[in-house]
């Protein structure tokens, strides 16, 4: 059988149909976390019938169905199918391919299919049982299944084993069978109970049956009587019914007649009412007409009144307007007068202004002359003053120039002196600098020499340091290697020690005894193998020589040995041999043995080759005292032969020559397994460790020394390098200083040449200046001797002209002011005149407006008068109309009253007729009711007959004679006699029926 493929649709994260194909061998399902790998394992378990949704990592069964994402809609159902290849018929079915499907809908319906045919979950369990992939098998190990297997109770774990062992199918069947048997037994028990109850009841039921027979006889008699009574009553009712029908017929014909009469009267009355309604309509129209005429008249009167009022108002307005016109004319006259006065004033002012303007022109010409004079005087004065000031300025300039020249001459001389002095200084500096330059060169050479020496020293030191470093590294390598070796050895040693402490390899019994915490334990010395020290060279030989005796336990005395033995017995811990020191005896060696020990190649007795506490002398002499040690197998065999095979000889490679000629040998056992070898190994390891440790210490000391030396050399090297650096620095500095000095020298030389030039220039300049000074002084003397002009005279003339001009200006100003004042007054008069004109114009406009208004008013008055006359005419016409309407109305009212009287008469007739009709109707109804009553009586009697189980025919046949009352009495007496048996018979019937039913059903179920 093989799993071929698996189809998932809508299962958890597999929204689309997904098919996984499985080949033989291993299929690995891989993918990032949360991609849905485990959903595949969930799917397999789900198909195999997993019922617990929590095991499938869900909360409710719906969680198994694809729940939808932001872009996909949820699925309605989840479906998983597993396809198995069943060509080997491992599954108990004839199909060669088996498809197992499980489907779950959102409604919660779960369906199982085998080869697309619906089935039960149990069928799937049965199908897979004992194939190794059933319900409880280990076929699917989920992520938490590991813990569930390990943490579950032993009884739960058993289920897995049953599945594998192939008995779970039988177990299921057995449980089913047991359950069915129990159920059948329970059913049988119930039937037995029921039967005993039924049998008890059989006797009383017999008696009751007889009583029933009697009751039936009486009851049939009663029935006959009752039938007779009912029949008679029925007949009576039928007779009465026929009578009632007759009376009803007469009432109906009468009623019909009355109804016809009533209809005729009603028709007449209706015609009359219609005529009256038409009249009403006409009257209403007349009323409306009259009302309209009256309203119109009222409105006309109102309008006439309003017209009259308006006429009065207009007259009043007219008189007001006349008043206003008079007033205006008055004001116009006043204005005219004022205007004339103003015109006169204005003319006067104009004359005055002309005079003033003439005077002003005269003054202006005078003023012009005076001013020209003053200006000429001032100009002449200015010329004189300018000439004077120019001369004094020139003199001052000359004086200042000569001063300046003199001062510069002095300065020049001082500069010459200073330059000479500086030149001297520089000369001195130059000589000093030359000396310094030489010195610096000498120093530079010395420094360079020193630096070379230091460099050589540093190189030699570096080489030494390198050599030392190499040596140190070598030492360290060795140290590390050794350290590793020692650690490995000590690790192994610890293991061996712990084994020894736990008495490993001594056998269970010895271990139990030696680890016991009993009082006698202190008197046990330990196992033989643990009590001696064996050189590793002899380890194999001694191991062989001791053999099983290695595990013997040495005790202080026999009592301790016995106690230990009983302890072992109690514990059922096995057996071992004890060697009590007090009972043990050492063995005597024979002469042969002593002699053989001296043979070449022999190594003496085994007991002498090992070391032990003197206390155990007896133990080891008894065990090994007579065993000889040989170096090789050949030696051993030679000696054994020589002494006639009476000796026990053990060779170093473990070959043993026994007394009697037999020999034992072969490859040695695992070293750790054997106690002796282990101990020897341990010892050896301890020795190695100790030696390694010592060597390590020496190496460490050497390393330390070397490191110290290396440090020292490094220090010296640093020092030498430092010196070298300093020296070369100094040389560099000296060289730099030399260069600097040289540059200084050149500078100084240049400066000296400059000074020479400068002194020369200064001297030339001085000569020049002296010449210019002489010229200037001559010019100045020349100038000072010239005359001062007559300024004062010109000044006076100028002042007089100025005063005259000022006076003329004052007069001019006064005249100008007077003229301005007059001009202003004239313009003021003009303004007033203009204002007057404007006001006058306004008044004229007002007058015109007033005249227009008055005209308007007069026209409206005429109009109002015309309207008034027209209105009066209309009113007279309307009054005539009103009177006509009222007359028409009066005539109409009279005809209307007549119609009303006629209608009232007709109403009385109709009422009478209607009463008669109702009376007949009532009678007819009464007859109907009676008829119904008799009919119901008849049907009631017929029902009673049917209830008594008789048809009319049968009742006639069983008829009994007698009056109705006698018959009633007879029935009552018969009823009284059969009464007591009635209910009990009914109960009896139901009881019987029930018992019968329960008995049959129980039997049926028991049969199944």
């Amino acid at each position, binding site marked *: 059988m093989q799993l071929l493929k698996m189809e998932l649709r809508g299962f958890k994260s597999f929204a689309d149909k997904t098919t996984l194909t499985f080949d033989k061998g291993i299929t690995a399902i891989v993918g990032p976390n949360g991609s849905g790998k485990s959903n595949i394992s969930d799917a397999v378990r789900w198909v195999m019938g997993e019922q617990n949704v929590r095991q499938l990592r869900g909360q409710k069964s719906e969680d198994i169905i694809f729940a939808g994402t932001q872009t996909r809609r949820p699925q309605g159902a989840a479906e998983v199918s597993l396809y198995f290849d069943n060509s080997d018929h491992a599954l108990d079915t004839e199909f060669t391919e088996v498809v197992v499907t499980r489907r779950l809908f959102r409604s919660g319906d779960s369906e199982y299919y085998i080869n697309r045919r619906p089935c039960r979950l149990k069928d799937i369990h049965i199908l897979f049982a004992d194939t*190794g992939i059933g319900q409880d098998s280990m076929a699917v190990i989920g992520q938490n299944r590991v813990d569930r297997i390990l943490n579950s109770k032993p009884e739960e774990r058993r289920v897995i084993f049953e599945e594998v*062992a192939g008995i779970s199918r039988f177990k299921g069947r057995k449980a089913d069978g047991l359950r069915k048997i129990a159920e059948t037994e329970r059913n049988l028990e119930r039937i037995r109970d029921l039967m005993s109850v039924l049998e008890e009841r059989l006797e009383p039921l017999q008696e009751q049956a007889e009583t029933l027979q009697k009751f039936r006889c009486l009851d049939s008699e009663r029935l006959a009587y009752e039938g007779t009574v009912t029949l008679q009553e029925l007949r009576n009712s039928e007779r009465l019914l026929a009578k009632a029908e007759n009376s009803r017929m007469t009432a109906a014909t009468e009623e019909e007649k009355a109804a016809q009469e009533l209809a005729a009267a009603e028709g007449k009355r209706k015609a009359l009412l219609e005529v009256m309604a038409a009249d009403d309509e006409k009257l209403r129209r007349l009323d409306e007409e009259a009302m309209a005429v009256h309203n119109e008249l009222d409105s006309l009167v109102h309008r006439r009144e309003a017209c009259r009022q308006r006429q009065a108002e207009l007259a009043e307005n007219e008189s007001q307007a006349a008043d206003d016109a008079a007033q205006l004319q008055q004001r116009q006259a006043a204005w005219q007068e004022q205007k004339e006065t103003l015109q006169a004033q204005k003319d006067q002012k104009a004359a005055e202004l002309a005079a003033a303007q003439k005077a002003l022109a005269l003054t202006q010409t005078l003023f012009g002359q005076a001013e020209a004079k003053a200006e000429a005087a001032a100009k002449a004065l200015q010329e004189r003053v300018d000439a004077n000031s120019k001369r004094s300025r020139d003199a001052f300039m000359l004086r200042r120039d000569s001063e300046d020249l003199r001062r510069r001459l002095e300065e020049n001389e001082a500069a010459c002196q200073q330059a000479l002095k500086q030149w001297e200084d520089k000369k001195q500096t130059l000589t000093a600098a030359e000396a310094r330059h030489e010195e610096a060169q000498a120093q530079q050479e010395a420094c360079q020499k020193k630096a070379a020496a230091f460099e050589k020293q540093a190189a030699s030191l570096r080489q030494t340091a390198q050599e030392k470093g190499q040596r140190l590294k070598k030492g360290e390598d060795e140290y590390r290697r050794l350290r590793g070796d020692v650690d490995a050895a000590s690790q192994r040693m610890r293991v061996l020690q712990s084994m020894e402490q736990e008495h490993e390899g001594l056998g269970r019994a010895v271990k139990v005894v030696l680890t016991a915490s009993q009082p006698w334990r202190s008197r046990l010395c330990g196992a033989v193998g643990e009590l001696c020290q064996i050189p590793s060279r002899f380890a194999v030989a001694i191991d062989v020589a001791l053999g099983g005796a290695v595990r013997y336990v040495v005790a202080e005395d026999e009592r301790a040995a016995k106690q230990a033995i009983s302890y072992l017995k109690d514990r059922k811990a096995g057996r071992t041999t004890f060697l009590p020191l007090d009972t043990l005896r050492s063995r005597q060696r024979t002469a042969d043995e002593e002699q053989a020990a001296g043979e070449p190649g022999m190594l003496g007795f085994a007991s002498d080759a090992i070391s032990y506490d003197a206390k155990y002398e007896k133990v080891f002499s008894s065990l090994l005292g007579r065993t000889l040690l040989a170096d090789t197998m050949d030696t051993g065999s030679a000696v054994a032969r020589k002494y006639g095979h009476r000796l026990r000889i053990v060779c170093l490679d473990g070959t043993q020559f026994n007394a009697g000629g037999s020999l034992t040998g072969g490859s040695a056992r695992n070293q750790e397994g054997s106690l002796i070898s282990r101990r020897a190994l341990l010892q050896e390891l301890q020795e190695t460790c100790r030696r390694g440790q010592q060597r390590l210490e020496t190496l460490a000391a050497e390393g330390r020394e070397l490191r110290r030396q290396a440090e020292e050399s490094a220090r010296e090297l640093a020092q030498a390098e430092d010196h070298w650096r300093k020296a070369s620095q100094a040389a560099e500095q000296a060289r730099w200083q030399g260069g600097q000095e040289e540059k200084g020298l050149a500078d100084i030389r240049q400066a000296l040449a400059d000074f020479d030039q400068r002194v020369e220039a200064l001297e030339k300049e001085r000569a020049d200046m002296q010449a210019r000074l002489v010229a200037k002084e001559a010019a100045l003397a020349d100038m000072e001797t010239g005359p001062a002009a007559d300024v004062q005279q010109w000044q006076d003339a100028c002042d007089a002209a100025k005063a005259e001009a000022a006076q003329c200006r004052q007069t001019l100003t006064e005249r100008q002011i007077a003229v301005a004042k007059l001009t202003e007054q004239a313009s003021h008069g003009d303004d007033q005149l203009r204002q007057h004109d404007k006001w006058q114009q306004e008044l004229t406009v007002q007058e015109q407006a007033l005249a227009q208004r008055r005209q308007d008013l007069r026209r409206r008055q005429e109009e109002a008068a015309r309207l008034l006359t027209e209105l009066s005419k209309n009113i007279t016409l309307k009054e005539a109309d009103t009177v006509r309407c009222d007359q028409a109305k009066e005539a109409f009212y009279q005809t209307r009253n007549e119609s009303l009287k006629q209608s009232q008469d007709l109403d009385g007739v109709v009422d009478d007729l209607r009463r008669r009709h109702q009376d007949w109707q009532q009678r007819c109804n009464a007859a109907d009711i009676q008829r119904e009553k008799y009919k119901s009586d008849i049907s009631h009697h017929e029902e009673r007959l049917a209830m008594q189980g008789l048809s009319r025919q049968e009742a006639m046949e069983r008829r009994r004679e007698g009056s109705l009352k006698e018959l009633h009495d007879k029935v009552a007496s018969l009823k009284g006699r059969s009464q007591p048996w009635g209910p009990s018979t009914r109960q009896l019937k139901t009881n019987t029926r029930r018992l019968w039913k329960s008995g049959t059903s129980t039997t049926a179920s028991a049969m199944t």
Partner: protein
Amino acid sequence: MAEQFAKAFKEIGVHFQDIFSRLFGGGTAHLALTDKEHILEAGVEIYIRPPGKKQQSLTLLSGGERALTVIALLLAFLAYHPAPFCLVDEVDAALDEANVERMARYLKNYSGATQFIVITHRRKTMEAANTLLGVTMEEKGVSRLLTVKVDELLKEGT
């Protein structure tokens, strides 16, 4: 029935002991019934002693030891009666590299009779597989499948 169960139990016990000590590289393990008189009702107890440790309760084992124990038990079952297929979901998560390799080798040994479906993140286990099925989630919340047949690729490669 009792006889069949006893026989199966004994054989599984032997296999388990053998596979356990080989998987752990030492140590001992055996299975025992809690009540030997009533074989059909008795529970199953597992006794484990990993190498270099004393016998321990199952609850005190480390994660890797637990996984190895269950794998040993599973392999013992398969040795007794090979199941048609077996699905293991990340049992190798707690194992170290050496043990993963050992487990993969064992699975390979048994894969002749039993089909193994292994859900895993470990490279060594994937190396042992004949077919790789990759599950991805390109669209959020929807798994997709990708199949790689390692054996066929190897054949093509050679």
